[in-house]
Structures are given as structure tokens and as C-alpha cells.
């Protein structure tokens, strides 16, 4: 009984002395160092709080945060939409009637992107789309702090085509297809007639 009481006092005192040391320990601002730093896990002194908007931890170079698309470099191959495990990328493509131009790495662009939407609310930040992209136009930025008031604001629209332009291009494509169909029919008729 007495031993128990003495032990209680001893352990209580030990705890109290530990907390009072922390109470009067340095409460200097936390130095912000990267997680890759050798000292990162050895820093046990001082305050642990990162005062977020004023202080930010440096993000690693390979960090996977918000997606961004450089639409001028996109050849609308649809690979990113196909590999996406959660189907957060929606692409509406229109074949062009002729070569549109070249991307910055020289690949020919033959398809218009009437719609290129990424729903960041669905995105699971796996980064697969950035890996399959042949022109490296879809990348993950180091931007991670994003808050919106409406869920639809998380749907990022990257296409720069207006609906009117898209409709015009669609019409052009239809005309071209119709022309080709007609030409094909004519060729087949000719072939049958010749035989």
C-alpha cells in the first residue's frame, strides 16, 4: 500500500517534470525544412506547429497534386481518359479535315478537343495520365491548396474551343465524310459496272 502510494507520487512527479520542461522549452517558430532533409525526423526541440498560410513545407519534386493540361500541346489521343482508373477525364474529340499544326515537340495535331474536362473531385492523384501522355501535355503541378464553394468548380475545363467553333468543325467533318462516302460509292459503282 505505502509502496504503491510512493510509486504513485514518484511517477506523477516524473510526468510533471517532463511537462514543465516542455512548458518552458523554446517555443521558437518551427524551421521549415523539407521531408527529404536528413534532420527532418531528428528535430525534437521547439514547437511542432507549422503556421500554414505563413509557413509552408516545401513539396517534393515528384509530388502528385493538382493536374494541369497545356491544351496547345495536346494531340487528343484520349490515352489519359482511357487509363484513368476513376474516369475523371472526359474528352470530346472532333477529327480535323486537315493538319491543324504541330505541338511544341513536333507531333502533328489532327484532332480538335471540343471538350477536355478533368473532375478534380473524382481524381485520385495516381498520376497515370501524366505517364501515358505521349506529348507530356498533362502534368501534375505543385499546387495542392484548392478550396471551392461549389462542387462543379472542381471540374476543370481545359478546352479553348467555343461551342460555335466546335459546331463549325463538326459540320466541316460531316461534309468531308459525306464527300468521301459519295466518292467511295461512285468508285464501287464504277467497279461493279466494269465487271
Amino acid at each position, binding site marked *: 500500500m505505502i509502496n504503491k*502510494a510512493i510509486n504513485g507520487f514518484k511517477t506523477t512527479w516524473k510526468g*510533471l517534470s*517532463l*511537462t514543465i520542461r516542455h*512548458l518552458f522549452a523554446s*517555443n521558437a517558430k518551427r524551421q521549415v525544412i523539407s521531408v527529404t532533409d536528413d534532420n527532418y525526423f531528428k528535430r525534437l526541440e521547439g*514547437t*511542432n*506547429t507549422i*503556421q500554414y498560410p505563413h509557413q509552408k513545407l516545401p513539396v517534393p519534386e515528384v509530388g502528385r497534386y493538382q493536374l494541369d493540361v497545356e491544351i496547345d500541346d495536346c494531340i487528343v489521343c484520349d490515352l489519359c481518359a482511357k487509363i484513368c482508373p476513376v474516369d475523371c477525364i472526359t474528352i470530346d474529340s472532333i477529327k480535323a479535315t486537315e493538319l491543324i499544326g504541330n505541338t511544341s515537340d513536333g507531333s502533328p495535331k489532327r484532332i480538335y478537343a471540343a471538350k477536355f474536362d478533368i473532375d478534380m473531385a473524382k481524381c485520385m492523384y495516381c498520376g497515370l495520365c501524366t505517364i501515358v501522355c505521349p506529348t507530356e501535355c498533362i502534368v501534375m503541378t505543385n499546387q495542392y491548396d484548392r478550396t471551392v464553394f461549389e462542387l462543379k468548380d472542381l471540374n476543370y475545363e481545359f478546352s479553348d474551343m467555343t461551342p460555335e467553333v466546335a459546331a463549325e468543325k463538326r459540320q466541316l467533318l460531316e461534309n468531308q465524310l459525306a464527300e468521301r462516302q459519295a466518292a467511295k460509292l461512285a468508285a464501287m459503282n464504277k467497279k461493279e459496272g466494269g465487271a
Partner: protein
Amino acid sequence: MSFYITYVLVSIGLFAFSALFALFAVYGERKVSAFIQDRLGPTETGKFGLLQTLADILKLLQKEMIIPTAADKILFMMAPAIIFIAVYMGFAALPWAPGLIPSKINLGLYYIFAIISIETLGILMAGWGSNNKYSILGAMRSAAQIISYEIPAGFALISVVMIAQTLNLQDIAIQQGTLSAEKIKFLGFWDITKIGGILSWNIFRAPHLIIAFVIYFIASLAESNRAPFDIPEAESELVSGFHTEFTGLRFGLVFLAEYSMMFLVSMVGVILFLGAWNTPLPNIGAIHLADWTTSKVWGIFWIATKTLTLVGIQMWIRWTIPRLRVDQLMNLCWKVLTPLAFVCMLVSGIWRIWLM
């Protein structure tokens, strides 16, 4: 007629003091807990976050006061008022300085002890009135705990009263310094009536009162429902116990009562054991430190300093020691503190007869 105005002014002053103290004690508590846990605590509202609790109370004032449909409305609405008024009325009999006491009653200690017990009633009303199983569990625990811990606390206080031979808190305070009319003996043999200072405090007049003081301090933690005796509000099991259902100003009152209670029990401890408003500095030869630092202003300064130190220790303990289980709580109370308090009372009797 004018004494009515004085009464009202004094009571408003005490209310303002307890409200202000609660505000800054909450801020202090948050800062202390933050530093102990290597955090920073409030930093954004005002310089060093000083206006944080003010903003909190403004928010509480604006909130809707919700009464649960199934609650017992009268009990539910009266409970916070009773809890707070019980603690607030305890302040009436506490001496602040020589000649400065809101109500000089010769049963001061008895009165305080009686009026604080009413808080239990308020807590039970809150728990029962809420019609919520967590609240009633918290209230039952609180009642069991407060009633149990009043016994060691009471006997620890009786051992002081036996030394002091009075229940008047102002007289008990006067006995512990140079203003004393009777002889004061340090440890029962050295006459230090003219020297005063820390040596004439009750815990040094009769050293077994140190044990009584520790018993009282532990019991006072339990009476104000503070960790490690906070099973009535045990957040991890009972949401927050008896005040789960309270919102807005009613919750504010319960909170105010808790912090006022901390100050009240600390101040009672200071008055009975740690020399009340008497200075810790003794007269040494021609240097009359004790006489120089005994006056109304100094009295308020000393008693506030000592009490705030005890409140600080309460916070320090809260953020160090984990919560006791119910059986451990009752073990400590009935098997350790109560017998020890009885021994203290016995020693007090012997001390009074043989050494004083």
C-alpha cells in the same frame, strides 16, 4: 440606503472579476496546454491570440439556446444558473486584504463549504433535465465524486480550523502574519509573531498541515471536476457529460462556473494553508520587509499571486496526468486520503494542546 448600493456594487464587481478571470484562464489554459504539447495555441486573434476567448464568448452569446424536446425544461433551464450562482456566492466570504472582505461572517469557511456543495445539485439537475444517457451518467459520476471528496477535503480543513480555533476566514488570515494578536510559533517552538513572512503561514506553524494541504488540493481538483478527476465530463466516453446538451449562454455559464470554481478552491487553499494575503517576506532585524509589504494593495497582490500560482498548478496537473478510473478514484479517496486526513486531524488536536 447607501449600504444597498455598496452590496450591489460589490456583487457586480465580484461577477465582473469571475467573468474576466474565466476569460483569461481559458486563454491561459489553452496556451499552457499548447506549450506543454509543443504547439502554439491561439495566435491569430489579437496579439498572441489574446482576444481569442473574447471572440469565443461573443460567439457563445449570439448562439441559439436549444432546449431538447424531451428535456425537463424547468430543471434544464435552471441548472446552469444554480451551478454558477453556487460558485459565485462562495466568493462572498473570501478575504482579499486586511480589512477587505465582501462579507465578514464568522462562519465563513462553513458557509463556503456548504454553498459549494449546492453545485452538485445543479449538476444533477443538468444531467437529469437533459434526458440524455450521457448527461445523466456524467451527473451521477460527478455527484458521487464530489460527495466522496468532500470528506477528505472537509477533514483537511478541520485540521486547520483546530489550529486556528475559528471559522472566520479573515481571522484565520490575520493569524498567519505580523498583524496577529496572538503568539505565532514556527514549527511550534520559535516565537515569530514579530517576524512574520513565510514562516508564519499555517503550513509552517504546524508542518503536518503540509499533508493536509496536499490532501485538500487533490480533493479540490476532484470538486472542481478537473483532470485527473474529470470522469464526469470524460470526453472520450460521455461526449462531455452533464453539459452535453447545453448551448450558447447556458454552456457559457457552466464553463464560467468551472473556472470560477478553480479560482475559489485555490483561494480557499491559499487562505487556510498558504498565509492568505500575508506577505512571504519576513522581517529581518531592522529591515521590516513584512511590515512594508502588508497593506490593502499588497494584500490583494499577494493573494492574487498565490491563488494564480495554484490555478497554474491545477492546469499543469491537468495536462500531465491521465484520467483516473472510477474504482481508482474511490480507492484514492476512501483508502488513502480519508485515513490520512483523519490522522492530520488527530495530530492537529495533539499539536494544539501540547505545542501551542
